[in-house]
């Protein structure tokens, strides 16, 4: 599965997750439920992390390996379109997007 979205120049972009990154998205919440129970939930997390906040996107497993006219591909919103969110403060700290000081100040 991958993430597709529209770039500013109108061309469709494909975001391909790194297998090792998806593999380390594990763990359970305080109720014992898996935080990332499905591949789709991992890709939603990836979109929140690697896409600018507010970017419309779709998760798809469609075969896009034929690159004929690649630079003319366009993104059209479908029924399953989502929008990327902000990461939680914990995740922003985890991924080094904010410093410990910024985390502490934001947590007060």
């Amino acid at each position: 599965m991958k993430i597709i979205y529209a770039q500013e120049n109108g061309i469709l972009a494909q975001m391909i997750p790194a297998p090792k990154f998806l593999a380390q998205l594990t763990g359970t919440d305080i109720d014992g439920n898996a935080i990332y129970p499905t591949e789709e939930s991992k890709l939603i997390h990836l979109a929140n992390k690697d896409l600018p906040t507010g970017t419309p996107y779709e998760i798809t497993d469609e075969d896009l390996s034929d690159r004929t006219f690649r630079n003319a591909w366009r993104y059209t919103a479908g029924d399953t379109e989502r929008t990327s969110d902000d990461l939680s403060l914990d995740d922003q700290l985890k991924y080094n997007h904010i410093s410990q000081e910024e985390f502490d100040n934001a947590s007060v």
Partner: protein
Amino acid sequence: MSKVKIQGNASGTGVVTLTAPNTNTDRTITLPDGDISLGVGIDDNATSTAITIDASENVGIGVTPSAFNASYTGINIGKTGTLIAETAGNDGLYIGSNAYYSTGNNYKYIMDGKACELKMDASASHFKFRTASSGTAGNAITFTDRLEITDDGRGLSQFTAKAWVNFNGTGTVAIRDSHNCSSITDHSTGNWTVVYTNAIGANNCVNGYCKASAYLCQIDQPTTANTANVRAIHNDGTVMDVDYVSIIVFGD
């Protein structure tokens, strides 16, 4: 011929009991109740002290223990070696050379010279290798972190790769293997963005290789903290999809 001697003490009341085994493996020696005093240390001969345990239960092997911080238990090994761990907390284990954590809540030099330390922190699950420039015995030490090995397997230093990835840029991008890379975005023909799992210093050094000498692997400048933009350009100037692209990143 060796001999065994049992001698009583006229003033003492404690009993030393040697019990015969009741199984093939059970052997018991019962010593008197209470603490066993070793005097000033354990002697390896008649003239020197091999191990010293001070009133704070710090230990010196071959030396008198340093004045360790009260929250830590320390062992001195020889002239400059130290092992330190928090007595009650889980701050980790510190292996020092010419350094001990003092009552002043700081590190101090044991003798004149340089110092270094390996910190193993169980709570953060990481290793830190630290060094300090030369100082005077008894003065405070300022350590500089040189290498940190994190709980997710990254090595943070000036000399370890912050990220790398090897991918096939033809068809649907396929990542063969990677380190600290969360995704690759395929923008258009021969044009990709590598996104780092953990952000790094913005002024980093990115190097890339695209399959063969006929291809130039162009990295957008200036570099950024989260991504590296990569293009594969043929020597005729056209941007091309290529099946082997390797990127490696160093930096803060």
